[in-house]
């Protein structure tokens, strides 16, 4: 039987800043349509890993492939697969929601940026605020708009770096609902978060990073959510 190439494959990934090692021999795979949740304390290397996956940081060693495209060999085709959401919105405060989305859609060469902006605003329930400047939006609304922005190019891999930061309970529930819908639409997602409960609720695979290494990686259906907190701290202490 032929081997099926995983949608995301990370092998031997290292990232150093001078003498400081941020990532050490990181390896992981994720099937198409999977939802990998990465947990870990501050400084574990989660954000660095996502920045390398997003092509914002060059790796010191190792390889990353997405949908068969190698990061070093085909950086443009690799980037075309990506959508990035962070706790920072990547939005221009003085432009309206529609102008922000239309700008990013045009940047990706979407044929009719304004129409695409309208579709995405509908999808994240912000069509009624299309013409309001982003600076007037609440944190939760900005995060929904940020997800819409990340979807302008219809990416096959969505990278989420601490997307729950600064959200109140209501906004966090809406975000989880949005992420579940995206996952149900067969989008592949990698999310770094501190929030064990929300992460476990959404993930199909779970990883723990500690001191720049992946110390745990397992399918979600093989994990007992009741015992996960203990398991998480056990791995952190052992690292």
């Amino acid at each position, binding site marked *: 039987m032929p081997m099926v190439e995983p949608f995301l494959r990370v092998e031997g990934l290292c990232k150093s800043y001078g003498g400081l090692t941020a990532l050490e021999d990181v390896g992981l795979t994720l099937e198409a349509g999977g939802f990998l949740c990465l947990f870990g304390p501050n400084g574990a290397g989660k954000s660095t890993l996502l920045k390398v996956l997003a092509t914002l940081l060059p790796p010191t060693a190792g390889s990353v492939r997405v949908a068969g495209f190698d990061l070093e060999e085909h950086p443009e085709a690799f*980037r075309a697969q*990506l959508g990035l959401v962070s706790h920072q919105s990547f939005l*221009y405060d003085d*432009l309206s929601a529609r*102008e922000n989305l239309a700008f990013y859609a045009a*940047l990706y*060469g979407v044929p009719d940026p304004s129409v695409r902006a309208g579709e995405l605003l509908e999808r994240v329930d912000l069509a009624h605020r299309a013409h309001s400047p982003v600076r007037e939006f609440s944190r939760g609304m900005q995060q929904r708009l940020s997800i819409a*922005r990340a979807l302008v190019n219809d990416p096959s891999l969505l990278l989420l770096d601490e997307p729950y930061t600064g959200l109140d309970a209501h906004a966090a529930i809406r975000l989880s609902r949005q992420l579940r819908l995206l996952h149900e639409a067969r989008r592949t997602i990698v999310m770094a978060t501190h929030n064990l409960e929300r992460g476990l609720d959404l993930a199909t695979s779970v990883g723990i990073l500690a001191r720049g290494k992946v110390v745990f990686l397992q399918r979600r259906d093989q994990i007992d959510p009741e015992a996960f907190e203990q398991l998480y701290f056990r791995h952190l202490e052992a690292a």
Partner: protein
Amino acid sequence: MTLPRQILLLYRKDLRVEVRKKESLIAMAFFGVLIMVILNLAAGLDRRLQAEPAAGILWVAILFSSVLGLGRVFAREKENNCVAALLVSPLSPGALFAAKALVNFTLMSFSELVLVPVFFALFGAGLQPGLPVLLLLLALVNLGFSAAGTLLSALAAGTRRNEVMLPILLYPLCLPLVALAVKSTGAAFGGRPLTEIRDLIESMAAFGLIYAAVGYLLFSHAVREV
């Protein structure tokens, strides 16, 4: 998307924000006028200045006030870390550099629409404006200053004290261009013909093109450090 279209898209976006906020343009024009008024008071209200000191005053007002705009144009991309989204997109870093340099060029040109008439109102007695030559000199300085300023504002944005770092880096780098500008403007104000300052103008154009070429080539490295 082609490079010119990427540049145009970014340029229009930045101008739209600037037209809405007007923060850079107003700050630049106000600061430039303030410098000239203070220097006018210091020089003596009714005193006629020689051509070269007058040229120096014009360029001090333009270049000191321009830094306020140069810093803001790139700082705007750092707010909410928009620069990260641009770097993940198919945008060429060269297009980002060219668009930002073009925005800076435009802002400098618009602030000069205020500063140059104010300069002639305060210091113009006895000077020969020579408008076509002055416009050429303004365009060349704007080219060099906006190109160097765009590259350095991206570098400075990666430091903790970016607003302090930009002028510290920019003025020494642009010193040859500024010296040439003062010399050639002084000569033009003194009524010397274009042919006599042709060498100076060619040198200014060369500096402008070098800053633009170096900025275009190095910008991808500068912007990744942000």
